[in-house]
């Protein structure tokens, strides 16, 4: 959907050429310009893997690759939902709230150590439905009350968190349903079922983005909402659908998180929002919307996961791990975003 506008503004570009835009431009030209850029996140991922494997060959052991896939499962599912929202140029801060509601619902309805419920897989369906409803409400609040997504979803975050604190009574509740726990403990073709669920979520997200009208409309809104509206797209409906879709993915992620940890407590989502946004952005999806997609996000999630795994394998001190993470984020975004084309950086 991105329209190449470079020839149109080339004159003004030359006029505005300052040191700031010159240097990244030169570097980009050196590597063959924009085509290279779209592959930058993948290159970062490959370089990262090679470097870590050289430093510690354990990295490419099958057991470790399985562990990598396992720890990427929840972030990948979350980031799938978030990608659609960021593609629209909006943001969804309700990730942690929705995730904790979904984890709370599944634990309280399936066999657990706090009440007598035992609805088995109905609990999973209810949890995903709860996530979807949370997303739907975010969408309705944003479009009907005309509240920016930042504030609307911030509100939903706290509502979700408050709801799970109340329902769980502040404590951690164990999930005793063996078949749901099998999502994390049972393996198919060597990989835990949770990984297959995440792969399924990725496939679904890819189909929605590339083969459905909803996917194309979401991208169009991110590119230019006014033009999209003038072309006859019902922007309100697309927005609501996108937030509900995101909630659906967060709901699945909540079930996976509860299955992995074997318990649910209100803060089960802590830190997930930041990780998901980082993965989406590092993958090369622009926060301004209209550029990127679920494949980028897959690579972004892998970069973040491999980095966390690699730092432990390399024995990097926990006291500087966050610093390394920050450097990597800046480096990945610097390589992948075409900042020469950005008129304003804010």
């Amino acid at each position: 959907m991105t329209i190449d506008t470079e020839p149109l503004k080339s004159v003004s570009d030359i006029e505005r050429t300052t040191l700031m835009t010159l240097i990244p431009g030169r570097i980009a030209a050196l590597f063959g310009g924009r085509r290279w850029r779209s592959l930058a996140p993948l290159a970062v991922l490959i370089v990262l893997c090679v470097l870590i494997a050289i430093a510690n060959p354990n990295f490419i052991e099958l057991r470790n690759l399985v562990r990598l896939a396992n720890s990427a499962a929840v972030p990948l599912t979350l980031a799938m939902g978030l990608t659609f929202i960021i593609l629209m140029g909006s943001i969804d801060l309700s990730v942690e709230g929705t995730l904790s509601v979904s984890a709370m619902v599944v634990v309280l309805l399936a066999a657990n150590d706090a009440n007598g419920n035992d609805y088995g897989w109905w609990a999973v369906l209810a949890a995903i439905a709860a996530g979807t409803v949370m997303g739907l409400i975010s969408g309705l609040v944003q479009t009907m009350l005309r509240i920016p997504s930042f504030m609307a979803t911030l509100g939903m975050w706290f509502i979700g968190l408050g709801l799970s604190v109340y329902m769980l009574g502040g404590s951690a509740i164990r999930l005793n349903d063996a078949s749901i726990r099998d999502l994390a403990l049972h393996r198919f073709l060597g990989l835990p079922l949770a990984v297959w669920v995440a792969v399924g979520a990725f496939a679904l997200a890819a189909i929605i983005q590339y083969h459905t009208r909803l996917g194309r409309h979401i991208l169009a809104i991110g590119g230019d909402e006014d033009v999209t509206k003038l072309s006859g797209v019902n922007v309100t409906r697309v927005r609501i659908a996108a937030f509900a879709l995101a909630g659906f993915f967060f709901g699945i992620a909540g079930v996976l998180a509860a299955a992995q940890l074997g318990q649910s407590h209100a803060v089960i989502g802590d830190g997930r929002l930041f990780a998901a946004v980082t993965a989406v952005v590092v993958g090369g999806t622009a926060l301004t919307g209209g550029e990127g997609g679920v494949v980028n996000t897959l690579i972004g999630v892998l970069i973040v996961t491999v980095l966390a795994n690699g730092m432990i394998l390399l024995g990097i001190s926990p006291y500087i791990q966050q610093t390394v993470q920050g450097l990597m984020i800046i480096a990945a975004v610097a390589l992948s975003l075409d900042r020469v084309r950005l008129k304003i950086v804010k």
Partner: protein
Amino acid sequence: MQDSKTLTFSGSVSRRTLMLGAVAGAATLAMPRVLRAADKPTLVTSIRSLSNPYHAVWKTGAEAYAKWAGLEHVTLVSEGNSEKGIADIKAMLAKTNGNMVLNSDPNDTPDARPIVEACAKAGAYVVTQWNKPDDLHPKDFNPNYVSHIEFDGIASGKTIAEILFKSIGGKGGIVALGGLISTTAAIERKKGLDAALAANPDIKLLDFQVANWKSTEAFDLMGNLLTRFGDDIKGIWAANDDMGSGALEALRAENLAGKVPIVGVDGIKTAVDAVRTGEFACTVTSDPFWQGGMGLAIGYNAKIGKFDPAKEPPEHREFYGKAVLISHDNVEEYYKTNVESKPEIDWNDLWGRVTGAIRT
């Protein structure tokens, strides 16, 4: 567009009505309370949040004491926000005219000073726990600042480390999961671990990593540590139970649960269950139920004149409480008295768990 406008409008009207209703309701509710406050003091608990098991139990303990003593009890939650914590306490002081007893777990170390000063000024009695600046002392605010209670993190970290070492036969490699780097509890518990390691040269600390008190982070971290050290990991030391339980689930995913013993601090239910099944070697708890109730009991007894804080010895003013160790030997009994039923505590035994004055 018309629709959304009407919606917005109706929203604002109902919001206003709601506010009016809420204010009116709060006013009516507040009235009898203020009148009642004239005779019996109100018990006030100020804690960080209700979303963690630790403070949830704290509140149960506070309510149990209030019921036993037949007093009104209010819980204030700061949600990790120092300003809110202090402002709520000041509002309660104004509402009760200073006729209250406060048991506070200040959100952050510097918060203790404004809280104590506000209470002293209003004539309320206050007990603080865990956090206070080093230069703030109960004896400087007689009689209002009754006591400050902490638990010796070095002792806890050391005790669980020694039990872990014993359970793996005194030699081999272990990994350690630390709490949020800047917090006192994380620093002290690690010091305890270091002390135990120094005394046991056959134990090798393979790696010390930080999981910020969270089970989710510990879960991912443990998977990575298993890759790096594999079967060399004979035991896991965790600075709190939540991280320990995250590590346990990572072990379970690799069929290692119960084969690699874990130790933690806090005594949350998941950990107690794991001690019963043998997946945890032990956990140690400061007993939040006791903290929640006894903090109020000490303040209330000073308030009604049962004892004069100014005449109490220093180890009653700033002291380490006795931590309770839950290991294989006593877990069944602990489970019966603390998990299946509410613990029975002698609320008249104010100083029974004093283990000594706080190190300076």
